[in-house]
């Protein structure tokens, strides 16, 4: 397999665009990534798009506006992991030698309020909304390991503080611990400010072979690992770890092995914080700390900007926003710019290795549908 590099990145400021269609705003992220990379648009051998709500041939509809069609265009759906999945598909195309330059785009226009479930997602009929799914994971962690409500809320405080420094973030305001704890309960112990807002957005990457990366664009960022996994059946009643945690653990282990690295090599990370507990569990599942110590990690400031391992310097899903299909791509836009030392006030000094993690798609019986982990290095 060939080495694959991120050579260009682009994203639009995330927000709410009730009057716009994907065709109106996603192309701007593509144009920015293209000019950032310096490649001629004719060099793009393939495009991979991710969206969950975008409808049929969404990628073609966006690229038509840019007069940029004719090559293979793949439209990917994998819920919250869709963006990471589209990068994985693009990575396969370059790594295999089939294409030298691939455009990867994540984009979404969200419905207001709770994400509506699929008919087959039967537990949601019983009242297990998406926030409730994460609330159940939180209550289990509190019982078993003594995670506190305050530690949970600190994830939101930390990520909003980072988001306040990100001009692309949907919410660029800091929040206090008290505000987070006293915001209205959604599914206990999760309060409103511990749940990602409703956000529209688009992000794009140009990835390429080493030969192309040498010739053009920004300082190339190597994709040291690209891993996609799906959930499997686990039975916690028999002492097995929950499917949701098992999925992230397997994706993380496979990524570290592919990169020839370990968790301690990571300098900065973007993890799936659609809800505060998601970030705490990601710390543990990805090996940033032992099982049960995720709450302490955030409380001690290890994962804050300025800490040993800053997590979600973009503001994360909680502050940057979480347009499902866009998220996994936006994480890699943030991290590749961090590794290129282009992140302004939220720059993580001297970062050489970064990790991006998304997971999602509530699937009773196998927990979570999909997870991706990418490791990037310079």
């Amino acid at each position, binding site marked *: 397999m060939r080495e694959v590099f991120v050579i260009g990145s682009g994203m639009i400021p995330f927000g709410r665009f009730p009057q716009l269609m994907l065709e109106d705003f996603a192309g701007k992220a593509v144009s920015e990534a293209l000019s950032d990379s310096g490649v001629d648009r004719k060099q793009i051998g393939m495009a991979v798009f991710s969206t969950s709500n975008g409808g049929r041939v969404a990628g073609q509809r966006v690229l038509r506006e840019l007069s940029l069609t004719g090559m293979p265009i793949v439209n990917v759906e994998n819920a919250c992991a869709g963006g990471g999945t589209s990068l994985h598909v693009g990575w396969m195309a370059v790594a295999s030698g089939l294409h030298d330059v691939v455009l990867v785009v994540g984009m979404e226009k969200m419905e207001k309020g709770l994400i509506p479930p699929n008919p087959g997602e039967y537990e949601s009929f019983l009242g*297990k909304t998406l926030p*409730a799914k994460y609330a*159940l994971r939180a209550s289990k962690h509190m*019982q078993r390991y003594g995670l506190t409500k305050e530690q949970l809320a600190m994830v939101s405080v930390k990520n909003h503080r980072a988001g306040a420094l990100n001009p692309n973030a949907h919410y660029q305001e800091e929040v206090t611990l008290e505000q987070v704890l006293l915001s209205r*309960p959604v599914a206990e112990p999760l309060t409103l400010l511990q749940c990602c807002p409703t956000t529209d957005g688009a992000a794009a990457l140009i990835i390429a072979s080493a030969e192309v990366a040498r010739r053009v664009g920004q300082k190339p960022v190597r994709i040291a690992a690209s891993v996609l996994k799906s959930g499997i059946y686990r039975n*916690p*009643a028999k002492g097995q770890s929950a499917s949701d945690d098992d999925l992230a653990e397997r994706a993380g282990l496979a990524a570290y092995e592919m990169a020839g690295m370990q968790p301690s090599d990571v300098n900065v990370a973007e993890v799936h914080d659609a809800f505060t507990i998601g970030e705490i569990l990601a710390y543990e599942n990805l090996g940033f700390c032992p099982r049960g110590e995720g709450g302490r990690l955030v409380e001690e400031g290890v994962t804050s900007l300025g800490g040993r391992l800053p997590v979600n310097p973009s503001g994360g899903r909680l502050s940057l926003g979480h347009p499902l299909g866009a998220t996994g791509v936006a994480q890699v836009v943030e991290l590749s710019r961090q590794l290129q030392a282009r992140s302004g006030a939220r720059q993580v000094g001297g970062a050489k290795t970064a990790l991006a993690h998304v997971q999602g798609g509530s699937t009773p019986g196998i927990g979570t549908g999909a997870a991706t982990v990418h490791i990037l290095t310079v």
Partner: protein
Amino acid sequence: MTTKTEKVEASTKIRPRIGRWEVDDHNEVALLGTRCAACGEVAFPEHQICVNCGSESTEVVRIKGPATLRNYTIVHQLPPGYERPWVVGYGEFDGQLSVLAPIVAASRDELHEGLSLSLCVGVTKVDDDGEEMYSYQFTPTKA
């Protein structure tokens, strides 16, 4: 024997596949699951192919309470059609399997890990057409 399952199956609407249940003459509720002949894994809802080992040799079993409450959440934001707040949680049956269900007629004070839960059947949601939709539920076991 009457079962609410029949009522659900008689409808032409697409229904969430939450799994089947039975109510016997003593008003006791049993969930219909499957046990794998090869590895013994018990699954609910029923799976003709074993969720654990992939064997196609499974038989229907009746899963009865009491169950033990493992974890729960009090849900405040829900789609239309639910009572608010609404409690859901995992009940564990004899170290064999955990089942997610609404928890009804439980006060906030009595909800805790280890609480004994009995199965019952009740209205979980009123759908857009005003039809009451039933499901299995948990309720604290009466002493």
